[in-house]
């Protein structure tokens, strides 16, 4: 039988399902690291969020008489929800987050492509405000030297708590962590001895810090991000403008809350803490909820970076990345409206054509 269809009769091979699978592949190393340092409990959390997301998608498909499981977007959402959970969390919390993400954030707005917020991100924020204490208690990774405590605040919130108590004026965040007796891995100690790079940064880069399952290993997340760039699932615009604007603002103003003055922000440490890397490469780049033009993506990324910086530095909550991205998700349609590509042959006002 011969097909008659409108041109073009060739296709690039880009495909929704393949895009989603690429994202899953890019996330897996970081998940594996989370399971390695936090134990099988972390695997259980990941499994529960994944299962809850996929099951919710399946049940809603039955309701709306559709079939959307094949696009694999529910797998991405479930995985991201799990990665944003502390390892020791009660299992009903990731389940609630996944159900909320798929059913409320995605499905009620019309399913994949129609949601205004990144489902996983919104799911995380939802349970963060509902179960704040559980969501802020983190297990220590197994790579850290034995200490009495089994759980701890993340470095980000620890520094914030101390700084806001006003007892540490003039101390850098490194000094605060040391003062609080935060331990480092023996590997990081050796690196510090050999190269002078601060052990806290080394640990944060490799993922030897208390934190959410999938957001601790910056190394593996960055590698995953590079994989997505190579596979052309994402472009550089959002991660670079996000991290870049955050870095600049942190450098200029980041020292203020610690009483260090202007231009004393700890850029590297700030980038390596919290969910910034995961957010910049995997959450802010969510196609559905970010602008379509490259210009718009740059604006979006800068907005994410600026809000993350503001919330982190001057806000009352330790984590800021997800709220910042959520905020920019709201602005995305407006960005798309104003950041149109240049129409071919269009000359800027006042400019002459050569």
């Amino acid at each position, binding site marked *: 039988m011969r097909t008659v269809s409108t041109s*073009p009769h060739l296709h690039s091979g880009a495909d929704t399902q393949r895009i989603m699978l690429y994202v899953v592949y890019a996330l897996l190393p970081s998940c594996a690291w989370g399971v390695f340092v936090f134990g099988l409990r972390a695997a259980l959390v990941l499994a529960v969020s994944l299962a809850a997301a996929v099951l919710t998608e399946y049940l809603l498909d039955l309701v709306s008489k559709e079939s959307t499981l094949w696009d694999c977007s529910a797998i991405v959402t479930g995985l991201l929800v799990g990665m944003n959970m502390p390892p020791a969390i009660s299992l009903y919390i990731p389940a609630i987050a996944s159900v909320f993400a798929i059913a409320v954030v995605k499905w009620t707005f019309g399913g994949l492509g129609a949601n205004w917020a990144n489902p996983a991100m919104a799911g995380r924020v939802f349970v963060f405000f509902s179960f704040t204490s559980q969501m802020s208690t983190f297990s220590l990774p197994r790579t850290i030297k034995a200490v009495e405590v089994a759980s701890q605040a993340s470095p980000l919130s620890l520094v914030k708590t101390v700084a806001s108590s006003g007892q540490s004026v003039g101390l850098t965040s490194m000094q605060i962590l040391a003062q609080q007796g935060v331990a480092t891995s023996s590997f990081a100690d050796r690196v510090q001895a050999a190269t002078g790079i601060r052990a806290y940064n080394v640990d944060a880069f490799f993922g030897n810090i208390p934190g959410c399952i999938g957001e601790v290993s910056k190394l593996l997340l960055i590698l995953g991000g590079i994989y997505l760039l190579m596979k052309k699932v994402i472009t550089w615009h959002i991660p670079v403008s996000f991290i870049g604007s955050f870095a600049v603002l942190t450098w200029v103003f980041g020292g203020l809350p610690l009483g260090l003055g202007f231009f004393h922000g700890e850029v590297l440490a700030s980038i390596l803490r919290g969910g910034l890397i995961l957010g910049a490469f995997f959450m802010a780049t969510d196609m559905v*909820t970010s602008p379509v033009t490259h210009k718009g993506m740059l604006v979006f990324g800068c907005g994410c970076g600026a809000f993350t910086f503001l919330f982190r530095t001057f806000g009352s909550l330790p984590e800021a990345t997800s709220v910042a991205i959520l905020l920019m998700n709201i602005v995305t349609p407006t960005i*798309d409206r104003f950041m149109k590509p240049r129409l071919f042959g269009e000359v800027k006002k006042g400019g002459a054509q050569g």
Partner: protein
Amino acid sequence: MHPPERKEYANSKALVRLPIPSELVVSMSQHLGAPAKPIKEKGDHVEKGEKIALASSFISADVHSPVSGTIKDIRKVTMANSVTCDAFVIEPDPQQHEAFTKKVDYQDYSKEKLLEEIKDKGIVGLGGATFPLHVKITIPAGRKVDALVINGVECEPYLTADHRLMLERTKEVLEGIMICNRILNPARTIIGIEENKKDAALALEKEIELRSLPIEVCLLRMKYPQGDEKQLINATIGREIPSGKLPLDVGAVVVNVGTTYAVYEALAYGKPLYERIVTVTGDCIAQPCNVIAPIGAKVKDLIAFAGGFSKEPDKLVSGGPMMGFAFYDEETPIAKGTSGILAITDEKDYRKSACLNCGKCVAACPIGLVPTKLYSLITHARYEEAMANHLMDCKECGCCSFSCPAHLDLVHAMKFGKRMGRKK
């Protein structure tokens, strides 16, 4: 944008002439504009190259018989682009006489005479748009052309007709270009060729140098859709045509290399445009080739000449795979605008997902449109808004659909939206 080239099927195949088929179906509407008006009747005998239909309005073109033969019928025919129009069914004489082999000296023809000859020989743009050439190169008073751009880009995958022409008829093509040059008298004449046809560019350059012609060859980096007028003018002389404007508005005229060859034949031999080069190719064609075929030959004749199908194709396409028309009937005749006949395995995935807002179509659009936005407006019947968002600037080049991971029929929507928008 870089679609797969797939030129290797036919780019080494020298031009060959199709034997005269047993029946030709010559359409009255093989050019942009009004269909031509028949001047022959059923039962009439016509000579090779005899005029059988006349241009019926300003934008229209004469049609000539490709053979000597008898008009068996005048009936409706549906062309590959789904246009249905009147056509002559011609049965060729068993004996075909040689015609248009004697050289004519046209060197002292005036500009007007040259234009008249071009009109008389029914020459239209052979790049695909089939715009009557005499209209295009008659410059209205007060307008100035300082650049003549010759389109040798052939950016559509699979197609190799222009490539072979430039390679094998180098002198003739250049002579045709010089005729256009004489008519327009531009400051610059530039041939734009993509890098995958370096051999043709070299052949042209060598000949230009030998005869010290005022023609430049501009080798362009591969980039689809560079063969589009707007893109080509930008690539060769760095001028952008604003929305809704024509090449003339930036002082340029674009003529396809195939057209310049037709111009050469029209003047040097007095030969009307009644045949053209068609690339018969695709993964389902046994022996892909570049064939000189009489207008009105049926697709089945061309395919049979190319050794038939090596396997049953999913799709027959007239033209290139990015902008060509899929059709199903092998009885369909070719026309002046038929640059290729493809028989291919369908690689398209028809499993659509929702639009992910990924922006790949936006990045791919050479005009700077937002296809995803237009798609959503058109599917919601908001045609006027789509027009306000520059829908009419869309060239239907196919870059958006080609890139779309959700496999949305973006080009289809654009075509439909334009139609609905024009109605209002």
